[in-house]
């Protein structure tokens, strides 16, 4: 089997599953209980938090656990809207965000907030100048993704940070769900960002767990009211087995990150260079440094993406149409739409997304199967 759909989800690492099982069996106390079982669970919770804080270069109190990327995005956006309502009602984001961001914005719009969607260029990236022009005295939040989930474009975070430094009171959220462990830590954890959200299952942790970095001193309203867990910001008994497992998964992910990133970049390039040579192929995530090392999006003209996915599946190779969230709903990719890609070709888009375990041999096998399928598709066309 060749699994090239790591942006949809990743396989939980065996060591991570092991931690999950051991914590479930041995440290099942409620971290809020006063007795020693609770105390142990609390200590493990905080040690996990400390490990994650150390790995991303944050302080202990700046790491908050969530149920995943969708919750993190909803929280950063709606939590800001609630906390900063009296200072303004204007929110800025991009046209290429994940639905968790986009639809949160749309919900707020219905509540009377004003939302500006920044346009993107042919590579799916916003411009810092557009952001600066969009900011108003009523702006309370800017939400930008680190890496686009459909085509792998890396937003110009350094330039955005420069703009945001001139507006220190506006909250800045980065959805970094696709950006962790991809050699982008310096851009993501810049000295200006206020909130960064992550999802565990995108880096070999279990489902249902994620975390948010919240800059010390920034105000956010809780979306989950209740028993006051997570420093009164996110109630609900902590999912300790998943939290500990995620702390471990993150350590494993970031161990030797540079070499892993380099390998993914090489694999991506090997496939990109191979398929680009075919006349009917259009590459959306080009061989440019503005694209992440692990995502490749392209289309074979005249063949629906779905057809290509199933054709590869017969060879035990798993890829995706643009994003898993929209792929079953027959809507064209919103990112490609925003890039003004013609609908005809956008419906043919497919996505390959790598992790640190993929190999060059897998890329070669993919290329071999691609040649075979391309000939078949040519007959159809």
């Amino acid at each position, binding site marked *: 089997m060749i699994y090239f759909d790591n942006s949809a989800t990743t396989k939980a690492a065996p060591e991570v599953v092991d931690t999950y099982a051991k914590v479930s069996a041995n440290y099942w106390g409620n971290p809020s209980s006063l007795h020693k079982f609770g105390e142990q669970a609390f200590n493990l919770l905080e040690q996990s938090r400390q490990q994650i804080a150390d790995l991303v270069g944050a302080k202990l109190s700046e790491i908050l656990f969530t149920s995943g990327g969708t919750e993190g995005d909803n929280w950063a956006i709606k939590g800001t809207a609630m906390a900063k309502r009296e200072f303004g009602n204007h929110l800025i984001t991009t046209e290429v965000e994940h639905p968790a961001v986009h639809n949160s914005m749309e919900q707020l719009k219905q509540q009377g907030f004003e939302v500006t969607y920044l346009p993107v260029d042919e590579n799916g990236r916003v411009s810092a100048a557009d952001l600066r022009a969009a900011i108003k005295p009523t702006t309370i939040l800017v939400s930008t993704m680190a890496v686009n989930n459909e085509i792998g474009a890396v937003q110009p975070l350094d330039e955005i940070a420069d703009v945001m430094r001139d507006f220190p009171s506006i909250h800045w959220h980065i959805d970094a769900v696709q950006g962790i462990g991809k050699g982008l830590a310096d851009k993501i954890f810049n000295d200006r960002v206020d909130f960064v959200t992550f999802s565990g299952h995108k880096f070999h942790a279990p489902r249902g767990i994620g975390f948010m970095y919240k800059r010390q001193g920034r105000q956010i309203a809780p979306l989950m009211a209740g028993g006051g867990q997570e420093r009164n910001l996110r109630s609900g008994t902590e999912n300790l087995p998943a939290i*500990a497992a995620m702390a471990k998964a993150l350590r494993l992910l970031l161990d030797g990150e540079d070499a892993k990133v380099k390998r993914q970049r090489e694999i991506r390039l090997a496939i990109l260079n191979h398929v680009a040579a075919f006349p009917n192929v259009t590459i959306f995530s080009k061989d440019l440094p503005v694209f992440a090392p692990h995502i490749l999006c392209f289309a074979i003209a005249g063949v629906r993406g779905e057809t290509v996915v199933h054709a590869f599946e017969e060879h035990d190779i798993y890829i995706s149409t643009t994003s898993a969230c929209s792929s079953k709903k027959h809507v064209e990719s919103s990112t490609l739409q925003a890039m003004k890609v013609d609908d005809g070709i956008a419906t043919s888009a497919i996505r390959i997304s790598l992790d640190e375990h993929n190999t060059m041999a897998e890329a070669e096998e993919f290329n071999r199967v691609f040649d075979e399928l391309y000939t078949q598709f040519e007959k159809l066309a």
Partner: protein
Amino acid sequence: MEYSEIMVRYGELSTKGKNKKDFIKQLGQNVRKALSEFDGLEVKAQHDRLHVTLNGADSSAVMERLKGVFGIENFSPSVKVDKDLDAIKEVAVAMVKEVFEPGMTFKINTRRQDKEFEYDTYQMNNIMGDTILDNVPGITVQMKHPDIELRVEVRMNGVYLSGKTIQGAGGLPVGTGGKAVMMLSGGIDSPVASYYAMRRGVKIDMVHFFSPPYTSEQALAKAKELTAKLAGYSGGIQFIQVPFTKIQETIKEKVPEGYLMTVQRRLMLRLTVAIAEMRHAKGIFNGESLGQVASQTLDSMQAINDVTTMPILRPLLSLDKTEIIKVAEDIDTYDLSILPYEDCCTIFTPPSPKTRPDLEKTRKYEGYIDVEGLMKEALDGIVISEIRPGDNYLNQNEDVFAELL
């Protein structure tokens, strides 16, 4: 960059005249203690500077430790080069490039101990300045407040180059300011007060009141963990836990409610004074900040302070809570301090303690209890432990968990 030594500049102590020798000796000891885990390292405390010869030790780990030693103004990691102009130039360029960002300015600062060296200070400044200008595109010279000051020291045994200066902790070396006893509750304030006490060179012993079962083992463990954190500034701290349950119960039984807190504080202070005297300490520090709570009004301070003539030093007296929290975050005690364990200050607090206790009444009510007998019993029950930096009390499973994570 592979550094060969770290040059440490003294803080205020350079101005201290005849005490200077003692200060330097103490700082040398403290630095040695702080760096004791590194093998093969040499510490030489000289009259104008202190030199740490690394002999291969990890320079960034050593510098991290030095940042926590009081009495250091700043320090510079430096590279030793042979007295060969080309070699000196090569390292100098690499060093400047490491810190250079577009728009930065620099200057060369040469000191020459070896008067036999073929170039004098002026010539070295010129040669090195030209070399940097030629090899680092975009850099410009600025004599006043440059971004980068490249120091070139021509000593007898080689040339030492350093390109950056790292801020030290300031203050005075712990131990040069005598010894005092610190009242450590485990809240946000007392660790910050401990930090300030040590920063002025005072060696402190911690006194912590322990009232089981009203306070938990966890509250005690938290106070010890905080001490372990603070021990990083002095190398080690004696932790004295004082059993306080019986005193609190007796006070609760005999003293009118409005004066519970005042009398209780007097007993704490009496015990602390007794301990300070036993240990030849010259003063008592605490984390009181004027007006913060009922026991910290001037009236309360007068009524409590009444039991002793020993100096009671309150480094946080005029700080706002937000300022105190800021320091607690900087010294990394805040997250520990806010752990929600009951401590002995909160548990017997009456709903409405007197903010302006009357001194005569306080004295009278204290007379309702057997002060001497209770104190003797408490002092007989004290437990003393030596706490080292990095000791672990709160999370006994840390190593087991580390395996899991």
